């Protein structure tokens, strides 16, 4: 006996609404959290941690980010320099500040130092910046989970 199929030959269609909803939710989640800023990123730097670390309440004025790795190499933007050869790059920043009617003392130097870097190198770097007229420094650290 031949049994006839009760459904016709149309292609079976799944209901995609729930899946699309879900995928959109995921895209929105990742889009909101993505951070394209390269200033704050450097894989070579492992920051020291501190229980007192808290993100600043207001963004720092004219931040200049210096990444200092364990071999005392300084990453500033796309340039890699040492403490002795950083002055020209900082002078460029000073010229930029002047073009905006500001002084070196208005800028904030953010030092992202590797935890194993000799402390004396950080002191040298601060001294070098100080000689060029910078006054405000921020030592960036990672939040320590209690």
């Amino acid at each position, binding site marked *: 006996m031949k049994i006839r199929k009760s459904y016709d030959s149309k292609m079976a269609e799944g209901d995609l609404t729930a899946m699309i909803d879900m995928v959109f939710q995921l*895209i929105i989640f*990742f889009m909101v959290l993505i951070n394209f800023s390269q200033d*704050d990123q450097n894989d070579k730097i492992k920051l020291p941690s501190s229980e007192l670390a808290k993100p600043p309440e207001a963004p720092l004025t004219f931040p200049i980010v210096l990444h200092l790795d364990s071999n005392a190499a300084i990453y500033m933007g796309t340039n890699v320099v040492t403490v002795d050869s950083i002055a020209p790059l900082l002078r460029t920043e000073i010229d930029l500040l002047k073009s905006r009617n500001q002084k070196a003392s208005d800028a904030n130097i953010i030092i992202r130092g590797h935890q194993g*870097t000799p402390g*004396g190198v950080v002191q040298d770097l601060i001294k070098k910046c100080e000689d060029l007229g910078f006054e405000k420094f921020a030592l*960036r650290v990672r*939040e320590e989970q209690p």
Partner: protein
Amino acid sequence: MKFESKRGNEKAELQLTSMIDVIFLLLIFFVMTFKIAAQEGDFSVKMPLQGSGGNPDTTNIPIKLRLRANADGELTDIVVNESLSYGNDWAKLRGYILELTGGNAPPTPEEGPEVEIDLDYNLRYEHVIRAVTAVTGQRQGDEIKRLVERIKFAPPRKPQ
């Protein structure tokens, strides 16, 4: 004159295939570029130029912190004001700061006692940050109690 629609009563169907392709591409992009980063914070250090003033320490509590290191850059001794030695016990150092400041936060970040940190050149930076953490405040639950806001560094001790 009445025009008759050629279309029947068929339900209009959207072609979703290409849209789903693009959405999945976007999703894969965001998943691959997503990076969980730990929260970061800053310690402020202000080094006013010599002769340009800055706020003098009016609290009469001079704090000079000397950090000594061994050849490997590990901390061996914490000396306060060239007289008190705390070994490598940060809790004792914080206790001393609490005693000096009376546990009171400075009225403004520009006021209050100033700590000058003098360290051996090869001391690992993480110990410097521990020193800064010990003197600047303490965490009480979710609150951070500030003790010292003004930190500065002594001139570097270049190796001979």
